[in-house]
Structure formats: structure tokens, C-alpha cells
């Protein structure tokens, strides 16, 4: 136990140092907002380390989806290649709802959220922490998916611009997802309601994100298209993160 703990705090220190470099003025270890965010992220990662349930379920679900789609597309590689980008995003969206549901169900399991809410912390820290941890899980899923898609569809998914768009798209999707899932978790229908509410809301994110990924994999990518699509994705990220930070207390408090 003691040994374990040493490892953790070293990890924490390294992370804090990294953060501290970006904003050198204040000591970040003392910032109450960031310590709260880190506490919750640490807790989520710890749970995932013990159970490995979130990422593994997402990965398995994605693999099943991809294989099913391949059959539906009659396994013609050419046909499959053309829809690979769309398929990648569709898979991420669907698997993402599983991750979101699981991550926020944990907080409702023993009404744990109450224990977090009575702690003297900013509610926005809870939102940000949940966005960070689900984003980490989804990025892990995407790591696997990119590998799988390269093999299955023989397209250059490894290009940096593709990875950048995947990252930005995931942040926006999870930011919208945490806000919506925090609401649907408190309804009678729980998990079922999430995709109905969330998927239409992320269309303005997925449209440019899929275009950007598609464009960056053609033989001669057009930089202007990619640039405008990436800025659309980034704009969505900012808008939705702002809405989330602004309204989250209304969603978790009563």
C-alpha cells in the first residue's frame, strides 16, 4: 500500500509540474479548483484501473459494430473504404454513449454524488473532471480504433491532422455528453434516453469533424477545407464547454 501510494503521488507531482509550467504565476497545488478536478479524475482513473470496465466495453462494442457494418456493406473493400471515416465517427459516438453512461452511473451508484456535492468544491470542477476522465477513456478507445481501421480499411488514419481532429472532436462530444448524461441519469429512463438527446446535439460537431478526417486522407488534401473544418470543431468545443461550465450546477444541485 505504502509503495503504491508513493507511485501515485510521484505521478501527481509530475502532472502538476507539467501544468505549472504552462501558468507559472500561481502554485497549482494550492489552487482549490484544480485540486478538486484532479481528485475526481484520479478517482475515476483508479476505478478504471481496478475494473477496466469502461474502456474494455467500449472497445468490444466498437469492434462488434465495425464487423457488423462490414457485413452490411457486403465486405467490398472499395465500398467500405469510402465510408470508413463516417463509420469511424459513428462507432465512436455509439461507444461513447456507453462510456458516458458508465462513468456517470458510478456517481449515482451509492448516491456518491451527494458526498462530492457536500464537499466545499466548485461544481464546475465536477463537470471539468468528468469531461477529462471520459475524454481519456474515449481517446484510449480511439487509439485501438485507429489501429483497427488502418488494418481493415487500409487508409492513412495515422496522419497527425486526423489524430488532432479526433482529439478535438472527442473533447466536444464528451463535453456535450457529460452535461446531457448528468441529466438523463436522474430521469426514470436513465441510460436509454442518452442517445436520443445527445446525438442530434453533436451533429454540428460530427459533420465538420468527419469532413476534416476524410479530406486529410485524400491524395492531395486541401488545406483551406481542413482549416475551416477544424475551426468549426474547435468553435463547437468552446461553445459547448462554456455552456456546460455555466449550467452544470443547475444539473447536479437541487
Amino acid at each position, binding site marked *: 500500500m505504502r509503495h503504491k501510494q508513493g507511485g501515485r503521488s510521484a505521478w501527481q507531482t509530475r502532472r502538476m509540474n507539467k501544468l505549472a509550467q504552462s501558468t507559472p504565476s500561481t502554485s497549482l497545488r494550492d489552487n482549490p479548483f484544480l485540486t478538486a478536478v484532479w481528485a475526481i479524475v484520479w478517482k475515476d482513473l483508479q476505478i478504471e484501473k481496478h475494473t477496466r470496465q469502461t474502456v474494455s466495453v467500449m472497445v468490444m462494442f466498437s469492434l462488434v459494430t465495425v464487423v457488423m457494418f462490414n457485413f452490411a456493406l457486403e465486405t467490398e473493400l472499395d465500398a467500405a473504404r469510402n465510408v470508413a471515416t463516417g463509420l469511424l465517427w459513428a462507432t465512436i459516438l455509439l461507444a461513447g454513449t456507453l462510456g458516458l453512461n458508465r462513468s456517470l452511473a458510478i456517481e449515482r451508484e451509492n448516491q456518491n454524488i451527494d458526498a462530492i456535492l457536500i464537499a466545499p468544491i466548485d461544481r464546475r470542477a465536477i463537470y471539468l473532471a468528468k469531461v477529462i476522465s471520459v475524454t481519456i477513456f474515449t481517446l484510449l478507445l480511439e487509439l485501438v480504433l485507429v489501429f483497427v481501421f488502418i488494418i481493415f480499411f487500409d487508409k492513412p488514419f495515422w496522419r497527425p491532422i486526423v489524430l488532432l481532429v479526433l482529439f478535438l472532436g472527442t473533447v466536444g462530444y464528451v463535453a*456535450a455528453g457529460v*452535461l*446531457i448524461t448528468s*441529466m*438523463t441519469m*436522474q*430521469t*426514470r*429512463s436513465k441510460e436509454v*434516453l442518452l442517445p*436520443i*438527446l445527445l446525438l*442530434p*446535439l*453533436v*451533429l*454540428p*460537431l460530427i*459533420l*465538420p469533424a468527419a*469532413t476534416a478526417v476524410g479530406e486529410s486522407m485524400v491524395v492531395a488534401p486541401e488545406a*483551406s*477545407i481542413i482549416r*475551416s473544418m477544424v475551426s*468549426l470543431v474547435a*468553435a*463547437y468545443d468552446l*461553445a*459547448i464547454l462554456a*455552456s456546460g461550465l455555466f*449550467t452544470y450546477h*443547475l*444539473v447536479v444541485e*437541487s
Partner: protein
Amino acid sequence: MSLVKLNRWIPILNIVAAVTLVVSLGMNFFYAPTERTMGNVQRIFYFHVGSAWVGAVAFFVALVGGALYLRNKQRIWDTIALSSVEIGLVFLTIATAAGSVWGKPAWNTWWDWSPRLTLITVAWLTYAAYFMLRGAIEEEDKRARFAAVYVIVAFVTIIMTYISIRIFRDIHPVVFGGTLETAEGASEGLQDFAPGLESMKMGITLTVNTVSFTILYIAWMFNRIRLQYLMDSVDSLKMRVATRLQGGKA
């Protein structure tokens, strides 16, 4: 606004809405000139634009209602937001159906994933989901709060959908170009169709339609709000009866 006031104004509003609706229908058929290339089918266009306009207004009103509810937690704002989304969805459906009927002769297809139709579909899904959310929450206060948050986020994303679709179309003119472009927007469309006096008559008809649809929207809003008042007062009466009965027993 009190129930008494509503009761006084609603019959008047209802009559005004009915009359203007009949007038605008009459104008669509007898005043507006027959369009040259499309023929009589074009007459549905006035209806289509009128209802699409009201849809947009209604969702904006819902946004305002939601924001004001979150600010001062007064029930009336939740009622306004709810009523507006309900009515807006009806008008959006009318606009979509009318657009589809117009699309068949115009572009020889009922449906096409053109930017405009994509936007309408997404807006429709987004606001239909609003009722799913409301329906799944028991406690009134929580329902109103979540609905208000959702209606704000929904509006933000609808605006972003609109922007991204515009930019999207600019860079992919091949996909969405050609005949579909002729259906672009109300004003551009009208100018294509007819010059001079005829164009003016069309413009007047369109304006009258838009105004009468807006009046219809307002009348429906008041009716819907009154309905909510009545439902609430029934609830509170039930509660009082229950309390009285309980008190009598002890």
C-alpha cells in the same frame, strides 16, 4: 398575466387568428398570381415560409423562456418555454410537409439531404427529444430546470448546425449545387419566379401569410398557457382536498 385576463383575451385572439388565416388562404388562391414555371403548386410556398418562420420564432421564444426560468425560477417561464416548443414543433412539421410536397414537382424528389432539410431534420429531432426528457422526470422543479438547460443547449447547437452547414455547402458546391440551389431562400426564390407587379402581389401574399401565422402562434400560446394554468389549479385543488382529508382524520 392572470387567468381572468387570459380568459378575456383568448376568445378575441382566437377570432382574429381564424379571420386572418382565412384571409391569407383566400389570398394564396385568388390574389396571388399563378407562377410561370411551377404553376399552382407554387402556392404552397406561402404556407411553407409562414410556418417555417413561426417555427424559428417559437424556438427562440423557448430559449428566452428557458433562460428566464433559470434566472428567477418562476413557473410561468417554464410554461412559456414548453408551450413554445410544442407549437414550434407543430409549425416545423407543417413547414417540412409543405416543403416536401413542393419539392416533388420542383426537384422531382420528396426528400433530399440538402443543407436546409438536414437542418430541419436535426432541429425536429432535437426538439422532439425535449419532450422525451420532460416526460422522464417526475419532480416538477427538476423537470423545469433540466428542460431549461436543454432548451438553451439545443438552441446553441441548432445555430451551430446552421453555420456549419452553410460553410459545408460553400466548400462542397458540387454535392449540394444545381437544381437544389434554385430553392434557396424566400426572397431569392421569389425574384426568380416573376418580375414587376406579379412579384409585388406575391410579396404581399407572403407578408400576409407570415403575419397571420404569427397571430395564430400567439393565439395558440395563450391558449396553451391558459391550459397549463387550469391543469395547475386542478392539481392544487386536489392537494388541498387531500390535505383536508388527512387533517380531518388526525
